[in-house]
Structure formats: C-alpha cells, structure tokens
C-alpha cells in the first residue's frame, strides 16, 4: 500500500537517507529505529507529503504521496505544552473527524455520533469531557489514536507515540494500536527509540543509520553483525529476558567525535 523505491531525502546540505526501498503491506506493523537525526521523523513527514524526495519515488495506494491524504493517520508524541491540552478529549478527537474542512461546522448529530463511536473504540468515553491537561499521558495517547482513526486510515504513522509514557501506559497504547491494525487492516509505521514495548507486535524493523538502512524481521536486523556493519562501528546487541539492549550505537551519526554509550532498553 506504501511503496518506496530508491528514495533519497536531502534537507539543506544533508542527505538523511538514500536508496531507500520499502513496502508496507496492509495490516503490517513496521517499527522504524535509528539514532537521533537518522531521518526517522523525516521519513514520516515525507510520507505525509511535507518533504519532497531528492530522488526515487514514494507511492501511496498507487499514486505519489501528497499533502493532506485523509487515508493516512498520524499520531504525534505526547507533549505537555500544546494548546490542545486546554480542550476536552472529545474535542481533540473531533478535530480528526472534520477539522480540515472549511466553514464553522455547526453542531451536528452525525458528527457527535461519529466522535462517540471513536471514543468508544479507544476506551476513552468515560473521560471524554475532561480537559486533556487533566488526563494521564496514556489517556491522552488513547485520544490521539481515536483522532487518527477518524479518517478510516489505510496507513498509520506514529511518531514516538510512547515518548514520555510510563511502562504500563506504553504497553496499553501500543496494544491499542496493534489491536486496531489487526481489526481494521491498516499498515503501521511506528517510529520509536525503544523497540522493546512493541517487540512482540512488529512484523518487521526498519533501521536507519548513516544514511543507509536495513529492513527485515527483528531477529534478522537487531544483531551485533548487522548493526555494526550499518554504523561501521562496534555495536553489541544483547538479548536478555526477552528484551533487546543495543550498546555502543553512536548517537549522532555525523559527528566527528562520537561518544558511544548505552541506554538499557533503548536504541541509543
């Protein structure tokens, strides 16, 4: 449904990735991993039509990607300072239903029922009238999932949706996204710096580093050999208690003086 061939993204003087080939099948869950600045978020922005490709092509549902395609859902990272924190949960979901249309959008029964249906689908009905700022991070991200489901997406783009959530909320939110992609059959591109919360759900992993990439099942990509070759540096992948720890991945791929370090449970 999303088909990327030989894609190159250049922002300013910097080429983030080149020769990228990627196919996302309906219902497929792909985690996008890599260091800060490796172009994970920019990949999502490219799919959203916000960054033009320098080379290659990117097709969504058979046509080149464009801005404002309702069939692509988008879930951003939860942030404390957004003006969206001041509105109620159901109003946040409502923005996803018809927020991009012109006109005042007088109150309507059809829209109210649609919002109720979406709130119900993500289990947010009982706190829908509470201002978002009074909700926990996990509750806020449930609303974000509901908002993104509003367009009946074929593809869901998630940009660090688990960022700043506690472990329990991370599990709840990733399971919610996983359940809906199975029920509704949309593909998922899930950008995350920590693969562990979704390790049991992902079909494949896309790992971006140094402008290059590897894609495949988690077991094929998340190995010391593959990542050392990608980073062209000594990288150790340690598997312990069903978790993956990546040690020694340079944080900024383009710095001359790199400081390799490890974050337990994270891709550094």
């Amino acid at each position, binding site marked *: 449904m999303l088909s990327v061939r030989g894609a190159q993204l250049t922002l300013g003087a910097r080429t983030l990735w080149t020769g990228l080939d990627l196919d996302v099948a309906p219902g497929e869950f792909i985690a996008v991993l890599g260091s800060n600045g490796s172009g994970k978020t920019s990949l999502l922005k490219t799919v*959203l*039509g*916000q960054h033009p490709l320098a080379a290659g092509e990117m097709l969504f549902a058979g046509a080149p990607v464009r*801005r*404002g*395609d*309702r069939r*692509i859902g*988008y879930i*951003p990272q939860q942030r404390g300072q*957004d*003006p*969206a924190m*001041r*509105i*109620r949960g159901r*109003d*946040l979901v*409502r*923005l*996803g239903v*018809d*927020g*991009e*249309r*012109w*006109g*005042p*959008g007088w*109150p309507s029964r059809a829209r109210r029922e649609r919002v109720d249906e979406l709130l119900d689908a993500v289990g947010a009905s*009982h*706190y829908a009238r*509470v*201002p978002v700022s*009074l*909700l*926990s991070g996990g*509750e806020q991200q449930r609303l974000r999932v509901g*908002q*993104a489901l509003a*367009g009946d997406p074929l593809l869901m*783009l998630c940009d660090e949706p688990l960022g700043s959530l506690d472990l329990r909320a991370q599990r709840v939110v990733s399971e919610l996204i996983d359940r809906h992609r199975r029920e509704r059959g949309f593909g998922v591109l899930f950008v995350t710096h920590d693969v562990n919360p979704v390790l049991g759900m992902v079909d494949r992993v896309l790992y971006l580093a140094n402008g290059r990439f590897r894609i495949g099942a988690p077991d094929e990509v998340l190995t010391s050999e593959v990542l050392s070759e990608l980073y062209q540096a000594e990288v150790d992948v340690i598997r312990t208690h069903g978790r993956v720890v990546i040690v020694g991945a340079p944080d900024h791929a383009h710095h001359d003086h790199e400081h390799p370090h490890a974050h337990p449970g994270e891709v550094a």
Partner: protein
Amino acid sequence: MTDWWTQLFDFSDYGALLALLHNSVLAGAVLGLAGGLIGVFVMTRDLAFAVHGISELSFAGAAAGLLLGIGVVEGSIIGSLVAALLIGLLGSRARERNSITAVLMPFGLGLGILCLALYPGRATSKFGLLTGQIVAVGDPQLGWLAVVCGIVVVGLLVMWRPLSFASLDAEVAAARGVPVRALSVAFMVLLGLAVAASIQIVGALLVLSILVTPAAAALRVASSPVWVPVLSTAFALVSLVGGILLALGSSVPISPYVTTISFLIWIVCVLAGRRRRDRRTLVAKGVAA
C-alpha cells in the same frame, strides 16, 4: 463627590440621548460580535501581547493619517495590517513574536506621538485615538465599522474549523493538509482589521479589553468549542453595549466603562471557574481510580 457622580452617571433626558446616539450603541454591538469571536483565537494562539503591539502601530497609522490628511480610519487600518503581517511573518514562534512585538510597540507609539505633536488641529480628537472617544459615532464611521467587522466575522466563520485545528493541534493539522502557514497569515490580517476597528471606540491602549478579556473570561468557565465563542461574544457585547449605554449621558470617554465591565465579568468567571476546575479534577480522578 456628587459632582463626580453626575459626571460619571447622568441619565437625565436619557431617551432623547439614546435616540440621538443610537449609532454608538450599534457600533458597540457590531464590534462586540467581531471582538468576542476573534478573541477566542487570540487566546488559543497566544497572541495577547501581539494584539497590544498591533494596536500601537495602528495608533501610529491613525495619527499619521490625521497629519497627512489620508484619514484616521484609513491610516489605522494600514498601520494595523503592516504590524499584523510583520508579527505574523517574522514571528512564527512565541518567543520571536514577543520580541518583535516589544520592538514594534514603542516605535509605533513614538511615531504616533510625533505625528500628533505636529498636527495643528484640536487636541481632544488626538487623545481619543489612545484612550477612546466620547460618545459620537457618525453614519460614515458606523458604516465602515460595520464593513470591517463584517469582514472579520465572515472570514472567521469560513476559516473556523481549519483555523481551530491549526491553532490547537498544528502538527496533526499539517499532517491532514491544513494550510497552517497561510491560515496564520490570513488570521493576522483579520486581527489587524479587528484592532483597527476597536481603536475607534476604546482607543489604542485599551484594545485588549475587547479582544482578550472576554475570551479569557469565557475560557475560565467553559471549554467546549461551542460555549467558549458564544460566551466570549456575549461578554464582549455586554461590555461594549453596556459601557456605551452607561457613558451616554456622561462627559467621560466610553473606554473606562467598557474596561470596567469586562474586567468585572472576568473576575466573576475566575471565581466561578475555580470551583468548577476543582470539581473536574475530582471527577477525573474518581474516574481513573
């Protein structure tokens, strides 16, 4: 003491005055509608300080218009639009916007004072630009006020949903194809027009009482996308029309009445909203437990 009182509130021959000055009341109503609606977005987009900056440049434009004979109204609209576009285009982030506003504001005020100092005419109409005028809105003035406010209201209604989306949730709005940047510029144009209209009634220094206070009060007691604009508009209408009705018989400008009423409404809303917020917190916690 009684002297002050009769200066402030004098309702003798009120019926005749009202008939004579009904233009002022209509002007207040039209401005209240536009100001209450645009105020909602001034609050969500965090533009209160920018409004103040725009109004100082609008004052400069009006003063220059007076001096050069272009016309006060024309001058204030030009000044407003220049300031609104400068702030809108140069200050996309809150911090940049605040510093640009802070730089523009004294420059505009100084320019305005210079133009007024050079203007040979009467002094009363000069100060009206800063602190609002004594009740008297002529037919042509009401006409252009209605046109400007009409443009603001219609413009806002057309952009309402995408502008709300872009103001509240810019990242997801952009992902959905909302033209976030173009809407921001269009909004600044409407804001400039609303400021230019407000200056004619309450003066450049007190514009915030129409474009910010009513919306700030509404946000204290409501959070629904329907009730916030409805209440904000109602508060702005009550402040302006109420202020003008009180000011009709007095020898004092309209502005202190308007600013006092809108401030009192805000106080009441803050007190009412505090109780409400506490209860909501409890509801939220009770639900989560």
